[in-house]
């Protein structure tokens, strides 16, 4: 093949090649031409879900700039505006599109800010769970023997219990230990800690499985022979080759973490009312459901359902797209 241009040669580089080896423009062009992107465009539901996810993420993270009101600015909140219904109902106030909650905070702005907190907790706990799970999985798979047996037995035992129960127990125990600490400050960290400890098992199992396959391949043996220390082999050589499935688990777990966080907050052991996540907003609204002020609970709930549905759809698609059996 004498007259193959440089561009064409690059296009033949397989998708799993190290992106650092090729210039960024070629990488983008390659990504747009990949199998995965084609399967993405083929599935209309996925395109809609991706758009929905992007819009919701933007609304959440740009909340301070686009929300019509600042629910944390006490000077703009008036108790006189409390429990105003959405604009299309009687006695509505045009300033508040979706009505207000029990303290006169604009519900739409509250949902934007709440979604932001839900997403931050979700992302942080997914990252924490992934770091914990990947580390333990790499060690278990690479070292093997007794270390492997102990880590995997712990994982087995934990899998017997639903994550929500573990999160509740850890939350309760942590608050028993740090009972004296300020809840407002620490509930965020306690929440992430309990969610991470509830979700690490899946990562550990997957990474362990792929690590056991990778560690017998020649490149790892070569690295070992030239005397590279084990931690560096795990991090720099094996880790990049086992991250594909981790991405899928992380996407699906993000939806799960958001739901679990909302549930814990709804149950009163998650985010406090001063930093309300979507779950906290629903918990606040639940008290007013019976007196006919349904919007305080229902709108944050719909926002939560929409967010989780979109992320779930993306996760489902990603799982199928990266699964070679289904291609």
């Amino acid at each position, binding site marked *: 093949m004498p007259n193959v241009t440089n561009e064409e040669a690059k296009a033949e580089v397989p998708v799993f090649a190290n992106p650092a080896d090729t210039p960024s423009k070629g990488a983008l062009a390659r990504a747009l031409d990949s199998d995965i992107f084609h399967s993405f465009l083929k599935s209309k539901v996925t395109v809609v879900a991706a758009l929905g996810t992007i819009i919701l993420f933007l609304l959440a993270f740009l909340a301070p700039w686009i929300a019509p009101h600042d629910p944390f600015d006490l000077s703009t909140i008036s108790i006189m505006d409390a429990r105003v219904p959405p604009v299309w109902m009687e006695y509505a106030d045009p300033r508040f599109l979706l009505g207000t909650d029990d303290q006169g905070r604009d519900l739409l702005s509250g949902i934007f800010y709440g979604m932001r907190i839900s997403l931050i907790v979700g992302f942080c706990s997914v990252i924490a769970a992934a770091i914990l799970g990947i580390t333990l999985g790499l060690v278990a798979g690479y070292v093997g023997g007794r270390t492997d047996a102990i880590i995997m037995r712990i994982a087995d035992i934990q899998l*017997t*219990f639903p994550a929500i129960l573990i999160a*509740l127990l850890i939350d*309760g125990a942590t608050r*028993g230990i740090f009972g004296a600490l300020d809840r407002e400050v620490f509930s965020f960290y306690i929440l992430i800690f309990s969610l991470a400890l509830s979700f690490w098992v899946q990562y550990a199992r997957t990474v362990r499985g792929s690590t056991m396959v990778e560690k017998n391949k020649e490149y790892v043996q070569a690295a070992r022979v030239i005397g590279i220390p084990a931690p560096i082999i795990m991090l720099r050589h094996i880790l990049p080759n086992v991250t594909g499935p981790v991405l899928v688990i992380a996407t699906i777990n993000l939806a799960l973490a958001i739901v679990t966080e909302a549930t814990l907050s709804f*149950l009163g052991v998650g985010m406090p009312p001063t930093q309300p996540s979507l779950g906290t907003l629903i918990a606040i609204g*639940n008290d007013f*459901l019976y007196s006919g002020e349904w919007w305080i609970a229902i709108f944050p709930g719909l926002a939560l359902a929409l967010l989780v*549905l979109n992320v779930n759809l993306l996760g489902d698609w990603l799982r199928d797209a990266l699964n070679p059996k289904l291609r």
Partner: protein
Amino acid sequence: MLGFAIRRLAQAIIVMIVVALLAFTLFRFVGDPVNQMVGIETSIEEREALRERLGLNDPIPVQFARFIKSAAQFDFGTSYQFRQPVSDLFLKRIPATLELSFMSALFALAVGIPMGIYAGLNRESWVSKLFLSVSLIGISLPTFFIGILLIFLFSVTLQWLPSFGRGEVVQVGSWWTTGLLTVSGIKALILPSITLGLYQMTLIMRLIRAEMLEVIRTDYIKFARARGLPNRLVHFRHALKNTLVPVITITGLQLGSIIAFATITETVFQWPGMGLMFLQAVQNVDIPIMSAYLLLTAFLFVSINFIVDILYYLIDPRLRVERA
């Protein structure tokens, strides 16, 4: 068979010992039993005497053995909040939780199986697609929000069904109470059972559908059709029977998570069961109740897993061959 059962039993016992160790750590070190039993004005000497009397100065292994012994006799100490033995509190609340869990499992099976069969047999019909979309939404909606929606629709707006409590209950035997014998009790069960069972229902539906799609393609079904057997016979005698093995396993395993998720449903509907008590214990850091709940649910899960494993072994002959 016996070897398999013994191996499984040994594993189950190890799990229980680990969980007991956790529960003991929680009980003994996170909550200080003495602090909760005495007032502020109790002197240090009196505290020390109480400590000695309770055996809190004994070596840790001795204390752990004592903890297991009393737990085996269903003695979990005294609740911090209620000043009552934890076991009495649990006994009073177990019937409510079990009744709710049983009814929602029944709902999930009774609705999920027919929906799954239909969606598996009529893959392209719009009703099946509707079922699938609804099930996706059902999986994405958090349990507590489903409960709130149901309350809003059927209790607040239509005022058909009660939104909290068990209604009127009837005492059966010495400690069991049931709401199944009164009209208000049955009415009170409907919304919580649907809330709790909806997720399991969608799961069973998807599972049966997937299994049906797979079985329908196999040779023995084609052969049954070639023999001219009526559709009804092929679908229910031949196909359905073979889809039920995984369903039994999943249903068994899901029974555990039904009981765990009952915590959420019980909170939404103020259902006076174990889950609500556990949640209040977490909120108030009532360690004895938390550690007892941990032990009880672990025991339940481990027993269910054990039974499902054995059942699976009995139902599926292939497992026996592999082990031999």
